[in-house]
């Protein structure tokens, strides 16, 4: 069970709590987490990754085990602390604006 913390605007959009849990069937990667997230909550499609390119939207960041994974490949295996649910994967709206 993988725990995911969503930014305020997205958990409100999905009408869930700030933290949700996801089951993965295959390899535990960031791409697989996002696939499962969009499958379970279709209203989040296009809000984290671009519909057409499937790339991360520019002002979205992924924080994993104290590191910024925003530029890591989608298929990089997640660390054990995320896979076991010991700590959450954070999807973050980047600081921007003023």
């Amino acid at each position, binding site marked *: 069970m993988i725990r995911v913390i969503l*930014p*305020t*605007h*997205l958990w409100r*959009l999905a009408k869930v709590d700030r933290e949700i849990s996801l089951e993965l069937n295959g390899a535990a990667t960031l791409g697989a987490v996002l696939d499962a997230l969009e499958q379970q909550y279709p*209203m989040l*499609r*296009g*809000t*984290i990754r*671009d*519909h*057409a390119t499937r790339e991360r*939207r520019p*002002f*979205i960041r992924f924080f994993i085990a104290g590191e910024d994974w925003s530029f890591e490949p989608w298929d990089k295996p997640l660390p054990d602390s995320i896979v076991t649910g010991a700590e959450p994967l954070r999807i973050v*709206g*980047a600081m*921007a604006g003023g």
Partner: protein
Amino acid sequence: MSTIRVLVGTRKGGFILTSDAGRKEWKVEGPFFPGWEIYHIKGSPVNPDRIYASQTSGWFGQVIQRSDDGGKTWEPVGNEFSYNGVTATHQWFDGSQHPWEFARVWYLEPSLTDPETVYAGVEDAALFRSRDGGMTWEELSGLREVKGSLWQPGAGGLCLHTILQDPADPNRLYIAISAAGAFRSDDGGETWRPINNGLQSPFELPDPEAEVGHCVHNIALHPSRPNVLFMQKHWDVMRSDNAGDSWYEVSGNLPTDFGFPIAVHSHEPETVYVVPIKSDSEHYPPDGRLRVFRSRTGGNEWEALTDGLPQSNCYVNILRSAMAVDTLDPCGVYFGTTGGQVYVSPDAGDHWLPIVHDLPPVLSVEVQTLP
């Protein structure tokens, strides 16, 4: 007794303002979708409890919300806007060609006849249609084939911001784009022609009478006379008596003919409203006086409407989709400002009252007159 429901989109959420036919006492609900930019909210004329909203964010992209209970509850529907066919290019600020990139939905136009059909005008400029209540969207890409390579973004982006349906002819649609101009389809949106003959843009275009490229800000029509169109252009207030085949200027005695919205009285097809703005480089009313101007002669002769509006130190703007009318008698006129005020005139513009003073900057105002 009738109820008035005003749908307000702002930079930080949506609001619904309701009143009885007196239009003096108002209930304010919202913000809906707090923190998001709500570009436009509009209800279906066929089923007024079906309302569509464009919710958008630089962080999280585009969401379309739909309500089936008059705005009490909302559900997100389809948000995938994929351009059809070859990804064409349009002019970029530096004169180079730039590929079309979806940014947001500026305008939602529910069908006059089918609550499941709704049109969306988007940035980068294109027209989409949904026939399943907003769940899926298809581009009506014939529009971009009309010299799309010559379209260029205005300061607000290359946006399709106005969609009008001809109540007498379900196959006739009008749209407007900044900065490409006005276009008409006579076959339900499959093919299009530019309708910019008579527009003059000497300060914006090398050919002031170019077929496309004009910065049209807004177009309005009266349902009883859909061949007569009124346009607020970047500069100039224009009129067409032949469905846009040709235009002539009706700015007349306006203090400035720059502005954004234009609206037509719901019962008097020759009564038109504009809000003059000082200039393209100073987006606020001239002399710090917020004045709506009304023509009862279809243009050219305009009177200032000031009763209840600030007549000193007012430097707000009124954006292109932020003025609307109800269908009561007397006709109510509404507009929202970038200062967060929404004003109503329950008597066709003679007197004005603020409904709210302190909303976020208002992007759009639509009105529903409910039985």
